[in-house]
């Protein structure tokens, strides 16, 4: 049986019942458009969580001294030349930062708080949130800058401000407590208040001087593309024998779990939406088959084989889905375009930040997702047509002709 004829008959059968098939088509279009838009938001959320995790002083890969994660302190350190750079041949490296990060206590005249005191080289911090955070006052000038920048939320807690001096206490490399005064150069405004209350920055040379050791506690490396991560990690493991080389998924397991969940959410959302739709499609096709029972009986009577009858019903369903999917994807992409820069979730900022996300949710449409939606939808269309097709071939020609 020529496919062209079956295709022609299927299209004309669809056009024969314009209103019913139009309603079905509209349902497919809306469902596919909703799935495309929702999935792009899920991908945006996923991307956001990954970016936030990486930018949160983690990077894609981090080198730490053994035991630092369990008991962070200046004693868990390693030495590294200040002009260290990744070996030649390591592709996709966007940047790296060598830091000293120690637990500390910060005091103002009004309050005391526990913090992470981080010594940085500002020129290397293009890989972390520090470079993109809004800043009141001045940024650190270089690695030897002995001033500090603190988060706005911490400044409010300590009831302090730009230009004021704060005292910071931390343990030195010799195990004794060190205390020093630092003037506030700038107040940063990060996406999450948690970070603002947690991180205080100074020049890495200044912090090394305070703890009394020219060492580092972490080397953070960021990549342009995540797929290069595993190759880089292997190189670093060889390079830093005896140190821990960990990727962001190991360092931020909660964010990594959410990242994986987002992959599943894309499919869950698809099957919830399209699964409900399949029942409607089956119903429409069964109605269509039952209405044409005499016609199908005649086709069988004059010699059409059962497999051709099945093919006709399957093609009819596939054509409906094909049109619905094409229009639905176009509508979905138009919806994404209409969202522009993204959805502002600042009204729910606390909840959003607890998921490690930013308050602006940008849709990220992925070609692979759209292709997957298209293929799965067409697959569901075929599956949905199998029962009506089975009903069609169960019709005995003689019985059908007598109706």
């Amino acid at each position, binding site marked *: *049986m*020529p496919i062209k*004829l079956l295709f022609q*008959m299927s299209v*004309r*059968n669809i*056009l*024969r019942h314009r209103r019913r098939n139009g309603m079905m088509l509209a349902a497919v279009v809306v469902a596919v458009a909703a799935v495309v838009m929702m999935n792009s938001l899920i991908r945006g959320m996923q991307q956001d969580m990954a970016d936030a995790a990486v930018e949160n002083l983690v990077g894609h890969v981090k080198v730490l001294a053994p035991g630092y994660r369990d008991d962070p302190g200046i004693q868990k350190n390693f030495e590294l030349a200040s002009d260290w750079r990744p070996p030649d041949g390591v592709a996709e490296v966007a940047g790296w930062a060598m830091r000293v990060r120690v637990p500390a206590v910060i005091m103002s005249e009004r309050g005391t708080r526990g913090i992470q005191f981080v010594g940085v080289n500002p020129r290397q911090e293009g890989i972390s949130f520090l470079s993109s955070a809004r800043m009141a006052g001045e940024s650190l000038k270089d690695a030897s800058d002995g001033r500090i920048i603190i988060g706005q939320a911490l400044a409010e807690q300590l009831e302090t401000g730009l230009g004021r001096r704060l005292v910071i206490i931390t343990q030195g490399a010799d195990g004794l407590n060190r205390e020093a005064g630092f003037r506030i150069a700038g107040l940063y405004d990060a996406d999450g208040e948690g970070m603002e209350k947690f991180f205080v920055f100074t020049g890495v040379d200044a912090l090394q001087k305070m703890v009394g050791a020219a060492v580092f506690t972490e080397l953070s490396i960021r990549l342009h593309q995540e797929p290069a991560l595993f190759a880089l990690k292997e190189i670093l493991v060889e390079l830093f024998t005896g140190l821990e080389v960990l990727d962001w998924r190991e360092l931020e397991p909660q964010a990594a779990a959410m990242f994986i969940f987002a992959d599943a959410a894309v499919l869950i959302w698809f099957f919830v939406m399209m699964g409900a739709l399949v029942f409607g499609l089956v119903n429409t096709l069964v109605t269509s088959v039952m209405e044409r029972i*005499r*016609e199908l009986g*005649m*086709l*069988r*009577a*004059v*010699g*059409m*084989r*059962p497999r*051709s009858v099945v093919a006709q019903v399957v093609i009819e369903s596939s054509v409906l889905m094909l049109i619905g999917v094409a229009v639905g994807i176009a509508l979905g992409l138009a919806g994404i375009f209409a969202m522009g820069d993204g959805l502002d979730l600042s009204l729910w900022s606390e909840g959003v930040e607890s998921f490690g996300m930013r308050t602006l949710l940008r849709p990220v449409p992925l070609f692979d997702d759209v292709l997957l939606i298209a293929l799965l939808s067409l697959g569901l269309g075929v599956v949905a047509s199998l029962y009506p097709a089975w009903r069609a071939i169960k019709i005995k*020609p*003689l019985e059908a*002709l007598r109706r």
Partner: protein
Amino acid sequence: MSDVSVGNGVVVDCAGVSRTYQEDAVPVHALRGVDFQFARGDFVSLSGPSGSGKSTLLNLIGGLDRADAGTIAVDGVAVNALSESELSDLRLHKIGFVFQSYNLIPVLSAQENVEFIMQLQGVAPGERAERAVESLASLGIGELAHRRPGELSGGQQQRVAIARAIVTHPVLLLADEPSANLDSGTTEELLKLLRRLNDDRGISILTATHDPMVMGYAKRRVVLRDGAIVEDSAN
């Protein structure tokens, strides 16, 4: 398909054919051991009151139903032994059907309806179109080739159905109550047409009918009653 040995001039050979239906658990004997032969080039009407078994015999010969007992051979092929797919092939290649309600495909034009069977047979597009146009023209409806069934009268639709049935040059044309939905004028035109096809082209025609006019145009008249042949005579 398994072949049986029949005379060269015999298109249909039925021997001891019985068919019983169950209606509300009550057996209804539609045919009781019918013997019937049908020669090539013949035009036979099967008639009889409702429930006499004429349509049942027609359906059994056409492979749309299966006999409970007896044998049926169409053009030397034993119908009883065929699978569903083989029956489909038999209907497609050897038998032309004309139904009471025309049963044209509503979404296809008259020409496409006629071409449809040839498409199932795998005839090349050029030849298909040529034969369909020729077939419609020979039945006097060439100018209606591009109309859909809904745009045609009953008589015109029945002509398209006949064109569809004969375009594949079947060995046998089966017509079940072909005049049932037609007025007498149109019926007469249709019967003249069938008779012309039988006389000029030698198409073998077997029709089940209540209509005396149809019986009058056939060359041979077979009457059934209570599932048995009670009269078999030449017109």
